[in-house]
């Protein structure tokens, strides 16, 4: 299938079987996953631990071979090497040669990525400055903290000014200030016209920076689409808080309107579908209760994610 001009990453029916241990039995970790990443978007690849996020990313980076299916980046098969000049990759908890200094390793990666000698030094210094490691540029990497290594990992992914950046848990190991800085950096990459693919299980980061997401659970894609569409999806609901609501009236809300009731002090909160709001208000007021508040209920990303995980778990059992 031809890729559309804006399609940067295309994953089609990728299956991956692995052999745990030395036995002949295979375990399927990716069950025919498909998704695509569009130009100049920040794409969140979200899932719980062990869902297959890193495995998918390794297939895209050519570090493991898919058992079946096809993956392309910028129209090139992931098994090619030359096009990697246009991509950057930050692995999860990156490891580097401890005997090199920050400046030496960035220069080494720049050289491997084909950055010309004339601009290499300038680019390395620029990246060190961006990620706040200029003062540690001459220190050997075995003296770096986890957070510093994470920053260095981001720098090496960007040292050759790639078009597409793949980040595996980019906020991992960073303090709150570091997280904000990396978040800003990711947003800056998009502003510069780059495409960012981000593996993460931190939903707050997804809500803050991602344009679109795919949720993977148990090696299967459960959702692919915009973050806004995801949280806005489903039937609209409202939360109505009553004071002095008689118990029998509250119970009747459960039976008649499938209301979810919650006691808050002497008050009762009823979550009901928006379409039955008028009936609920009329009956409550008619029973002598007082309406304290009425507010729309937004499905949070967390709720959506948890329900996707639960659905995935139930299907996995079947």
């Amino acid at each position: 299938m031809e890729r559309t001009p804006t399609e940067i990453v295309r994953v089609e029916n990728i299956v991956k079987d692995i052999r745990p241990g030395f036995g002949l039995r295979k375990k399927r970790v990716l069950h025919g996953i498909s998704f695509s990443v569009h130009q100049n978007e920040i794409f969140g690849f979200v899932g719980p631990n062990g869902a297959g996020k890193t495995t998918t990313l390794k297939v895209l980076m050519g570090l493991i071979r898919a058992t079946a299916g096809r993956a392309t980046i910028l129209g090139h098969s992931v098994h090619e090497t030359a096009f990697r000049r246009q991509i950057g990759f930050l692995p999860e908890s990156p490891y580097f040669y401890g005997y090199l200094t920050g400046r030496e390793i960035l220069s080494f990666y720049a050289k491997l990525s084909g950055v010309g000698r004339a601009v290499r030094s300038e680019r390395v210094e620029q990246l060190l400055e961006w990620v706040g490691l200029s003062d540690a540029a001459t220190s050997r990497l075995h003296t770096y903290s986890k957070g510093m290594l994470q920053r260095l990992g981001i720098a090496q992914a960007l040292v050759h000014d790639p078009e597409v950046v793949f980040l595996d848990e980019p906020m991992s190991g960073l303090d709150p200030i570091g997280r904000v800085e990396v978040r800003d950096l990711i947003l800056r990459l998009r502003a510069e016209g780059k495409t960012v693919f981000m593996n993460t299980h931190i939903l707050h980061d997804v809500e803050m920076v991602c344009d679109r997401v795919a949720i993977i659970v148990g090696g299967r894609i459960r959702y692919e689409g915009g973050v806004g569409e995801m949280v806005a999806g489903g039937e609209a609901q409202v939360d109505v808080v009553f004071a002095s609501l008689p118990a029998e009236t509250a119970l009747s809300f459960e039976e008649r309107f499938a209301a979810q009731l919650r006691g808050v002090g002497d008050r009762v909160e009823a979550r009901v579908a928006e379409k039955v709001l008028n009936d609920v208000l009329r009956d409550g007021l008619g029973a002598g209760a007082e309406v304290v508040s009425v507010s729309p209920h937004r499905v949070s990303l967390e709720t959506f994610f948890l329900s996707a995980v639960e659905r995935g778990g139930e299907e996995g059992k079947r």
Partner: protein
Amino acid sequence: MTSAVRIWAIAMNTLREAVRNRLLYTLLFFAIFMIGAGVMLSSLSYAESERILQDFGFAAIRFFSVAIAIFVGVTLIHREVDRRTVYTILSKPLSRAEFLLGKYVGLLVTIWMQMAIMVVAFIAISTMTGALLGSSHAVAFTLIAVELAIVVAVACLFSAFTTPLLASFFTGGIWAVGHLTRDLRDIGAASPSEAIQQATALFHRLMPDLESFNYATEAAHGLVLAPSDFWLPIVYGSGYVAILLLLAIGIFERRDFL
């Protein structure tokens, strides 16, 4: 950027790692000490003390160079995978074959540099004691260097798919067998059983014949060697290294870095 430049970049990084590894300096110092200790050993002999000095020197250079080659070589690829440094490297525009060849060249340059320092020590001690030095010494040292190229390639091959412990057993075993395979073939040829004759001949063909790189005794005796004694082992060694590296690349290309 050409393939050669990428291979060289990996090789120079491998060399830099070795240069910053203090343990290798210790091994090198010990090797030079052993070459020097040959002076004491040769003084115990009434006759041919220079020959004993040089025999001992050649043995020390061969043994310590092979020991360093195995010691560093068996972790060459395995450590990159184990420490996951290979993830960032292979995400760059660099093929797995280029990476493996770069690691091989880097280690070989390291081992050859260490051997060159040992050879300088050998020449210095030989000159001080008045021992003979001739063209056959140059041939003998060059062929030890070719033997080391094979040992590093064997270590590289095993390092591409197994643990350092197993790789060191296999590499050390192949090195030892490589020095015995010619004798084994000759013993087999004297056997009345045709099956044993064929088996030992086949084994000799498959295993590296490392004795074909051993001209230490001839050099210590000051014998003049024929040109074919020099070129044939080089051609044989180069072919053997090429086959080993192709095998290593084939295995490394198929590996999943889970």
